[in-house]
């Protein structure tokens, strides 16, 4: 079970669980791009909230 460098794989590798094989060039991870874009928006907003509301919005602060 060592990982070779050949690019073709027998579908048996997945115990018959897959329907079709998809190669590198025929695959665009659109779902991943969507998920990661959502993640980016969430952390960017949370960062602004944490820094400018939670942190700078409270006193006293060390100057």
């Amino acid at each position, binding site marked *: *079970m*060592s*990982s*070779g*460098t*050949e*690019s073709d*794989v027998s579908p*048996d*590798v*997945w115990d018959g*669980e*897959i*329907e*079709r*094989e*998809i*190669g*590198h060039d025929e*695959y665009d*991870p*659109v*779902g*991943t791009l*969507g*998920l*990661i874009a959502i*993640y980016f928006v*969430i*952390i960017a907003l*949370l*960062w602004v909230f*944490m*820094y400018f509301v*939670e*942190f700078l919005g*409270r006193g006293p*602060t*060390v100057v």
Partner: protein
Amino acid sequence: MGLFVDEHPDEAFIVRAALMSSFIALLVGGLMGTIQALHRTGFVQVIDNSTYYTVLTLHGVSLVILFAIFFLVGFFQWAITDSLGRGAVDPRLTKAWYGLMTLGSLMAGIAILGGFTDITSMSADVLFTFYAPLEAHPLFYAGLAVFIVGTWLAGVDWFRSWWLWRKANPGERTPLRTFMVLTTMLMWYLATTGVAIAVIFFLLPWSLGLVDSVNALLTRTLFWFFGHPVVYFWLMPVYMMWYVILPKLAGGRLFSDPLARIVFVLFLVLSVPTGIHHQYLDPGIAEGFKFLAMSNTMFLLLPSLLTAFTVVASIEHGARQRGGTGYFRWLTALPWNKPAFTGMALAGLMFAAAGFSGMVNAGMNLNYLVHNTMWVVGHFHLTVGTAVALTFMAVTYWFLPEITGNSVFSERLGLVQVVTWFVGMVLMANAMHRVGLGGEPRRTADPFYEGVTFDTALGSIGELHLQIALGGLLLTVSLLLFMAHVFLTWFDVASRPAPKPETLPPALSGPEHAPAVLGNLRLWTGIAIALIVLTYTLPIAAIVSGNGLFGNAGVLAWGVETLVSLTAGVVG
């Protein structure tokens, strides 16, 4: 090819031994966690406040040192042996490092357990960070040193296997798993020099009475020299599992082998020169050094952000090969019935959340808000307590058949276990973050003070404490389920042999696409050392010239001080 246990019985024995040690530590450390979750929220207090700190020390050391590291050395032994297709060069060395790690654990463990009883004056109530001048019994420091030497020898063992493989296979790219083990171990060698120096030259002589005092800031800085990269020592094996096992479970292939190598190289280069970000609020370290540590830390986000993309893309590839369609509908085509898959996927999701609280922790002046509050505890229960621990537990469902030759007892029970962990940790870690923002300190037995109130922005402290306690109980249930499950599988109670051995499919974009320089470990180690020297020389020189190597009472202080200030003069 057969099962790992049939192909390499001697190595499988060591892997099983390491996992056994790891699980014992998990049980002990986890149960200590239950006591703490109930004690510090005030619901059930079966121990004294003073015993709480012994419990806390045992919790930290058992879980992050023993559980995590024993598991990962077992996993690495498998990764090296299986990916190179050859056994250990000298089985005696393999047994020796495992023996040393076990001996060290027992020494440190006995010292900690001494804190529970009055029969002996021995104790080590110094928590996982053992900041001097809090003092532990010498056995504790000696045990840590022996344990670390054991891990060093393990690295030597794996490098020897690789060197022989390279001689037999000139010109071939190092297999991905081996590459990941080697970069992780190189990072570990660099990181542990800090704690080794702290323990061997300062803490051990001091606890034995050979020197009168220590420079508290120096040993603390040396601890964090090790204390931050150690989290990558736990995390890098997890990344390996996410890169090489998770895509397969999802029904797909790793998206990009070269990118995985880049990520591990980035960890090797950037992990160590970041430790000062744990010391943002320390006196005696100038702001400029803190800013430098912050920049390094922020750039260390890069390998994790890249990993998020590659791993999710690999999972999506699997979902689409399984017939998944649509923008997000493919998520339902994933094998959620496999505990190994679901556990790792949930662990990854929690790590994404942990990424955010980590970014806050890394923000230099923002640290005034969260430093040493429960926020930090919430953060690392998402990282090491979920991303690492839940992935290790999940991968166990995939891994045990390979090394024991038995089928997993029940996938269904396994799924209940990983999901329970997820729910328990969401409740507990989220509440911890929120009480932390209210100012509740970490590492205390009883955070209820006269005349001090903690105002949380949302929800009352009482409600959040209830969430912490409930989450802790769910985690305990999950832990016991896991232990029972391991026991039932290990001793083959169901009497079912393992299914046919697993094959790991190669990456969609293979190693042949990686530029050759990526494999130049000497170069990357050299750059890592240069960065460490740049980041640490001046702060350490300043700390030593301020108070001497051994604090004010140190006899050697004057001579060394002169030497160091001369060096600092030359470097600066």
